[in-house]
């Protein structure tokens, strides 16, 4: 079997730009350059047309009105804009309490933390061990002054899908602005914003085969949601977000979302088949634990803990496959994944987790190679592991008193 290594199984960190997307983008950085805000000459007009066409495509994927789509530099900015923008706008009338979840992306958590420094209060809900939110606990967290709730659609580490409709309905009943980070959801789950009770939704291109550096925020028009701008300047994007728009990147996001709309169904079937194959293969290894609910989960994600093996050495061992242990955004630190800890996983299992994320260009050969590699490397590392040896000797590691460092 010959496959080209390293095999890329880190589609949740970022996806390759689809060649069809790149092809569409390139003319806009070479021939049709121009500042879309320059209204006085056709260089600007062509750019503006392309931007509006892309806005239509983004809107179509999520069944929204193009006028509800605001361009940003990515999901981090969308999340910051939505959370700080809505919280600041509505705090005067509704109050200063925010509800979010411990397993949100850092961009959401840190934006809420920033608001706390400005006098807001926040509840960080703990998810159930399967990663999903208990709706009753969500209801219980609501206070009279709750202004905003932010819950992600699809978790970046464990791929679980929250019940956005149910949570949104609760928010509606309680007059709470509801923001959803959908960076990991586009092209993976159906999103219909005509039906979903969601006020603000964050998107980015580079998790859906588009370029990095571009994202969007959905801002509902009916009923109209207002946000306070966080970036001020030329008054682009109807005053909600200033700064020169990168035309080629917007065009890329539009094309990426168009392709996602057309190909999502077929792609999900293919990806699910590969994911199930991977899971079946890895489950042949002893002492593996899947993190997160398997039923309410996108097929693209498989997050597994390999007991008695340390995470970083595991990553080193599997350098022929590009995967991540914990979220890409936190892997610079040596902390075990905060998402897995929020699920109640032990530090050891959190440390030894690997996120395999499968995508458009993954092949069956890639999966088979990965299974074989994991079996051999896990075997080798366990041979090295004093914990595995103790486990085989029947020692209950939770009862051992460690000479903690």
């Amino acid at each position, binding site marked *: 079997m010959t496959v080209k290594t390293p095999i890329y199984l880190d589609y949740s960190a970022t996806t390759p730009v689809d060649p069809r997307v790149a092809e569409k983008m390139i003319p806009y950085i070479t021939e049709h350059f121009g500042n879309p805000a320059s209204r006085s000459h056709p260089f600007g007009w062509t750019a503006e047309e392309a931007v509006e066409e892309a806005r239509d495509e983004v809107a179509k994927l999520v069944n929204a009105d193009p006028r509800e789509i605001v361009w940003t530099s990515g999901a981090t900015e969308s999340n910051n804009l939505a959370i700080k923008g809505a919280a600041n706008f509505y705090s005067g009338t509704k109050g200063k309490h925010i509800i979010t979840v411990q397993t949100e992306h850092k961009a959401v958590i840190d934006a809420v933390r920033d608001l706390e420094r400005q006098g807001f209060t926040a509840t960080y809900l703990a998810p159930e061990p399967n990663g999903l939110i208990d709706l009753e606990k969500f209801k219980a967290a609501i206070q009279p002054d709750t202004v905003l709730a932010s819950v992600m659609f699809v978790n970046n580490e464990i791929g679980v899908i929250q019940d956005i409709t149910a949570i949104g309905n609760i928010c509606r009943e309680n007059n709470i602005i509801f923001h959803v980070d959908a960076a990991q959801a586009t092209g993976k789950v159906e999103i219909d914003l005509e039906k979903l009770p969601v006020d603000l939704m964050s998107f980015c291109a580079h998790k859906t085969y588009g370029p990095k550096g571009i994202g969007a925020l959905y801002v509902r028009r009916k009923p109209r949601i207002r946000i306070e701008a966080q970036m001020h300047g030329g008054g682009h994007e109807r005053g909600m977000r200033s700064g020169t728009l990168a035309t080629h990147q917007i065009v890329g996001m539009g094309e990426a979302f168009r392709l996602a709309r057309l190909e999502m169904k077929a792609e999900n079937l293919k990806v699910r088949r590969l994911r199930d194959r991977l899971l079946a293969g890895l489950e042949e290894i002893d002492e593996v634990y899947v993190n997160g609910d398997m039923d309410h989960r996108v097929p693209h994600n498989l997050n597994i803990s390999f007991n*008695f*093996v*340390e*995470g*970083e*050495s595991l990553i*080193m061992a599997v350098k022929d496959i590009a995967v991540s242990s914990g979220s890409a955004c936190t892997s610079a630190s*040596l902390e*075990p994944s905060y998402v897995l800890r929020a699920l109640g996983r*032990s*530090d*050891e299992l959190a*440390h030894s987790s690997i996120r395999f994320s499968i995508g458009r260009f993954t092949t069956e050969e890639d999966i088979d190679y990965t299974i074989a590699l994991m079996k051999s490397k896990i075997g080798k590392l366990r*041979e*090295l*592991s*004093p*914990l*595995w*040896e103790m486990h085989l000797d029947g020692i209950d*590691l939770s009862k051992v008193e*460690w*000479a*903690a*460092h």
Partner: protein
Amino acid sequence: MAYSDKVLDHYENPRNVGTLDKNDPHVGTGMVGAPACGDVMKLQIKVNDSGIIEDAKFKTYGCGSAIASSSLVTEWLKGKTLDQAAEIKNSAIAEELALPPVKIHCSVLAEDAIKAAVADLKSKQPA
């Protein structure tokens, strides 16, 4: 993170992996670290009758640098007396393996493992 060639070599081809009989009076066992911290090192040394370390084995749960640090010290320990063994400093390990600052704790752990193994052995020997 870029690993040095020496770390990679020890990681790919760890020396002296294994287990000695911990009940053997000539064997000292040191186990340091904790799973929750991401590193557990088990180091064992076996001395001959003249007090020279004639064998050393390790098992390590930890990152590449932790594995390399423990693999390296098993090589260094052989042929040393217990007193010489106790003199091995983490800085020497870190230097030999060119560990980056964030991995210095791996060399500290290896030094601690040696000390723990020596102490264990000494505790077994008649006073």
